[in-house]
C-alpha cells in the first residue's frame, strides 16, 4: 500500500528509525531499509515527540542519502546473477541494503504563524520516523489553497506522483517581495514564467502584469483571452495586449540626464552643456506647462546653444559652442536612429497597467541600449506613479495616478542589471535596484528571469525573496546562486545540475519550505521553442518547395518594380551586439 496516499484514517507505518543527531544542530540521522525506495532527497518525513501534549508532527526534509549497508562487491561479479541470489546461497534472508538518511528539521507547523517552528532538538535514538502523506505535505508547503486569492499553482511535488501534491505559490509574496527565475538555457524558464503569468491572470487573481519580452516569446499568452480556464462567471476574461517594437514609444522628454549620457556617449564638455541645457528645459517646461516633461529634442538643442552663447558672452575664456554643436549632432542622430524614442508620443501607464490585463512588451528588434532605456523609463514612471498615488499626491485624472499594484516580469534580466563594474553604466540598473529595495512598500513587484545568474548583479538577485531555480550546470552560476539565494541550502543546490527540463527548486517567501517541483502544463501554447534546423533544411530542399521557389523568383513572374536592382531599401535590422559610438552615429565630427 502506498502510505503516502493515506489520509490519516489508518495509523501510518514507520519508514525508518532515528539514529541520532546529524552534523549540524538542525539535522538528524535515520536508518531505513527503504524497500520501496521512497525516501528520496527532498522528501518530507516527520516524527512525533511523545512529550508533546499536542502530539504535533515535527517535519524534516531529507537532505542526503548514504548507504549504511550494501551487498559486497563480490556479489556483483556476474551481471546476470542478482546479488540477492548470491546472498540466498549463503542462507541470508531479509533486507540487504540499509540507508542512512540525513534529515534537515523544519519543525512543527504552527497554524497561527503559518510557519515552521523548530523544536531545536533532534529525535531520540529509536524514535520511529514516518513519511508525510500527500495531504500533509500539501498543507505544510503551500501558503495558499488552489483557487484562492493569491494562489499560483505552478505544478506538483517532484518526489510524489504527478499531481499528488500540488505546489501553490503565494502570489501575494512574490509580487511584492520580488521573484527570480534562474536556469541554464533550455531548462524551461519562460515556460515556468508563462505558467505563473497564467495563474496570475486567472479569475482568482486578475493581476496587473507587464512582461518585458526581448525575444518575443510570450505572445502566445494572447490565447488566455479565449481559454475557458481564465473566464469567470462574472464576465471576467483577461486582456492580453501584445505591443510590437513599432508600438513602443518613449517620449524624449522622459529621459533623464543619465539616460541621455548613456545613449549619447559624451565628452566631458558636451556632458556639461547637456546637464545645463537639460536643467534649463526642465525648469522652462515646469514654468510654462506646469510639468517638467513638456519639451522636445529641439528645445534641448536650443537651450544647449543658448547656454554656449551665454558662456561666450560672459567671456570667461571658455567656448562651448563647438560642444553644443556636437551635442546637437548627437541628439539629432539619436532621434534619427533610435526606434523607440519619440518627440511627443509615449506609452501611457494606464494603458500598460490595468488589473486583469497582461501587457507583453516585445522588444525583439530593439537595440539593447534602447531596451534598457525603455525599461528604465517605464519602471521610473511606474514607481513614481505608485509612490504618488499611495502618498495621495497624484490626482485621479493625472497620468501618474495608478491605484493598484503592478508586477513586471523581466526576461534576460542580466542585460538590465548586469553585475560587476558594468552595473552602474547600464541605464536600467539603478531604478531596478531601487524598486527591488523599496518597491514592496508601493506595490511594485519585479520578476527577474535570467540564464546567467553569474552575470546578474548580486544585490539585485539577493533582493528577490522568492527564487525558482531550474537546471543550472555552470559551476560559476551555481556558486553565484549559492551566494545570493538565502533559502537555498547546500542540499537544494546539489539538485540543480540533476534537474530535468520542467523541474524546479522553489525556495523563499512564497513557499513554507524549499520544494522540488514538476512544473504543470501550460494552458496556452509555448512560444519559446527552439528552431528545428535539420527539419527546416530538409523542408527547404523538398522538390515541391524548390519548384515553388523557382516559380516565385522567375524573372518574368516578377513585376518590373520588384526588379532586384530597384528594390526599395529594406529597414535594416539593428545589430544585437553592444554598439560603439561610431556604430550608432557614424564618424564623430569632434574626434
Amino acid at each position, binding site marked *: 500500500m502506498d502510505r503516502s496516499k493515506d489520509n490519516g484514517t489508518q495509523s501510518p507505518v514507520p519508514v525508518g528509525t532515528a539514529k541520532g543527531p546529524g552534523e549540524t544542530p538542525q539535522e538528524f540521522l535515520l536508518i531505513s531499509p527503504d524497500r520501496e525506495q521512497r525516501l528520496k532527497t527532498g522528501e518530507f518525513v516527520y516524527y512525533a515527540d511523545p512529550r508533546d501534549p499536542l502530539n504535533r508532527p515535527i517535519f524534516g526534509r531529507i537532505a542526503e542519502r548514504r548507504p549504511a549497508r550494501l551487498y559486497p562487491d*563480490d*556479489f556483483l*561479479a*556476474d551481471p*546476470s*546473477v542478482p546479488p540477492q*541470489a*548470491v546472498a*540466498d*546461497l*549463503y*542462507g*541470508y534472508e531479509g533486507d540487504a541494503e540499509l540507508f542512512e538518511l540525513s534529515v534537515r528539521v523544519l519543525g512543527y507547523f504552527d497554524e497561527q504563524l503559518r510557519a515552521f517552528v523548530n523544536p531545536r532538538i533532534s529525535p531520540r535514538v529509536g524514535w520511529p520516523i514516518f513519511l508525510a502523506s500527500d495531504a500533509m505535505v500539501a498543507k505544510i508547503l503551500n501558503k495558499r489553497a488552489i483557487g484562492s486569492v493569491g494562489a499560483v499553482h505552478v505544478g506538483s511535488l517532484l518526489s510524489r506522483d504527478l499531481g499528488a501534491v500540488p505546489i501553490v505559490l503565494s502570489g501575494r509574496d512574490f509580487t511584492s517581495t520580488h521573484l527570480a527565475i534562474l536556469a541554464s538555457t533550455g531548462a524551461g524558464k519562460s515556460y515556468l514564467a508563462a505558467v505563473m503569468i497564467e495563474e496570475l491572470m486567472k479569475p482568482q487573481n486578475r493581476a496587473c502584469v507587464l512582461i518585458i519580452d526581448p525575444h518575443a516569446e510570450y505572445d502566445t499568452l494572447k490565447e488566455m483571452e479565449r481559454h475557458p480556464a481564465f473566464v469567470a462567471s462574472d464576465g471576467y476574461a483577461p486582456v492580453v495586449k501584445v505591443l510590437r517594437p513599432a508600438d513602443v514609444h518613449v517620449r524624449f522628454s522622459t529621459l533623464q540626464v543619465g539616460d541621455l549620457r548613456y545613449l549619447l556617449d559624451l565628452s566631458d564638455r558636451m556632458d556639461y552643456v547637456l546637464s545645463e541645457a537639460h536643467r534649463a528645459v526642465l525648469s522652462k517646461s515646469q514654468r510654462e506647462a506646469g510639468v517638467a516633461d513638456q519639451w522636445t529634442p529641439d528645445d534641448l538643442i536650443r537651450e544647449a546653444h543658448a547656454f554656449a552663447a551665454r558662456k561666450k558672452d560672459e567671456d570667461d575664456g571658455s567656448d562651448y559652442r563647438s560642444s553644443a554643436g556636437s551635442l546637437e549632432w548627437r541628439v539629432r542622430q539619436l532621434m534619427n536612429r533610435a526606434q523607440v524614442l519619440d518627440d511627443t508620443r509615449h506609452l501611457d501607464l494606464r494603458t500598460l497597467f490595468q488589473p486583469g490585463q497582461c501587457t507583453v512588451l516585445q522588444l525583439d528588434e530593439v537595440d539593447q541600449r534602447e531596451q534598457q532605456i525603455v525599461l528604465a523609463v517605464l519602471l521610473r514612471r511606474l514607481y513614481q506613479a505608485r509612490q504618488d498615488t499611495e502618498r495621495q499626491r497624484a490626482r485621479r485624472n493625472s497620468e501618474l495616478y495608478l491605484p493598484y499594484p503592478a508586477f513586471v516580469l523581466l526576461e534576460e534580466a542580466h542585460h538590465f542589471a548586469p553585475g560587476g563594474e558594468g552595473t552602474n553604466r547600464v541605464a536600467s540598473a539603478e531604478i531596478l535596484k531601487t524598486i527591488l529595495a523599496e518597491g514592496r512598500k508601493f506595490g511594485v513587484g519585479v520578476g527577474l528571469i535570467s540564464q546567467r545568474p553569474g552575470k546578474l548583479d548580486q544585490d539585485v538577485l539577493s533582493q528577490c525573496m522568492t527564487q525558482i531555480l531550474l537546471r543550472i550546470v555552470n559551476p560559476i552560476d551555481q556558486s553565484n546562486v549559492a551566494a545570493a539565494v538565502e533559502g537555498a541550502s547546500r542540499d537544494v543546490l546539489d539538485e540543480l545540475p540533476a534537474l530535468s527540463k520542467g523541474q524546479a527548486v522553489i525556495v523563499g517567501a512564497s513557499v513554507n519550505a524549499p520544494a522540488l517541483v514538476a512544473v504543470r502544463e501550460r494552458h496556452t501554447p509555448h512560444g519559446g521553442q527552439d528552431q528545428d534546423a535539420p527539419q527546416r533544411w530538409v523542408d527547404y530542399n523538398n522538390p515541391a518547395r524548390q519548384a515553388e521557389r523557382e516559380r516565385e523568383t522567375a524573372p518574368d513572374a516578377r513585376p518590373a518594380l520588384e526588379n532586384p536592382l530597384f528594390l526599395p531599401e529594406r529597414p535594416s535590422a539593428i545589430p544585437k551586439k553592444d554598439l560603439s559610438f561610431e556604430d550608432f552615429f557614424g564618424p564623430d565630427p569632434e574626434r
Partner: protein
Amino acid sequence: MESRDEPREIGKIVGSNDHSDYVVQVHAPGEVEITPAPADRAFGQFVEIAVDEDYRLIGVIYTTQLVNPAYGTLGPRLSTERELPVFSPDYLAETATLLGISIVGTAQTAGHGIIWNQRTPTLAGDLDAPVRRLAAADFLAFHRPTGQVQVAYFPRLLARPFPGLPDLLCAILDGLIAAFPNEAARLSVARQNIRWRAAIPAR
C-alpha cells in the same frame, strides 16, 4: 523417506574441539567388516553422525591426521615387524588415522520426510558414535534444504580459516555445480569469489 544408498561406516568419534568440531578415528583393519577405503575418508567427504533415531549431524572432513606413537622411538625391538601382531597385538592398535570433522548442519526425520538444516545443531554427538559416509543423494538433499541450493554453513567455515579451506569450499561448489546445472551461475559467482580471495589476498 528419501532413498539413500547404504552409508558406509568410516570411524567413530573419539573427541571434539568444540560443539561442531569433532575428532574421528578411522576404523583400522579388522575393526569392522569392511575397512573404509581412503576414498571413503577423503578431504571434503560429507559424513553423518547419528545422535538418536531421528536426528543426525551432517559434517564434512576437513583434515586428516596420522597418529603413530612409535614415531621417534628408534630403539631395538625384541620381535620383528612381522611378528608384532603375534607378540604385542595392543601395540599395533596405538597407530591411528584421525579425521577432523566440521559439523555443517543436521537431518531430522519428521513424519515421512527429512528436514535438512544448515545451521549449527542444537544436539551434540556422543563419544564412540559411529561416523558414516553421507550418501550422494543425501549430500544433494542437504544442499537444497528449501528447494534451492544453499551453502549457509560457508560463512561459519570461513570464520575459522585454514590453508585448505578454499579448496574445500570449491570442491563442495564443484559438486553442486555438476549436480545442479541450473544453479551454476550463482554458484560460480561464489566459487569465483572464494578463488579470488585465496589467490589474491587483500593487501
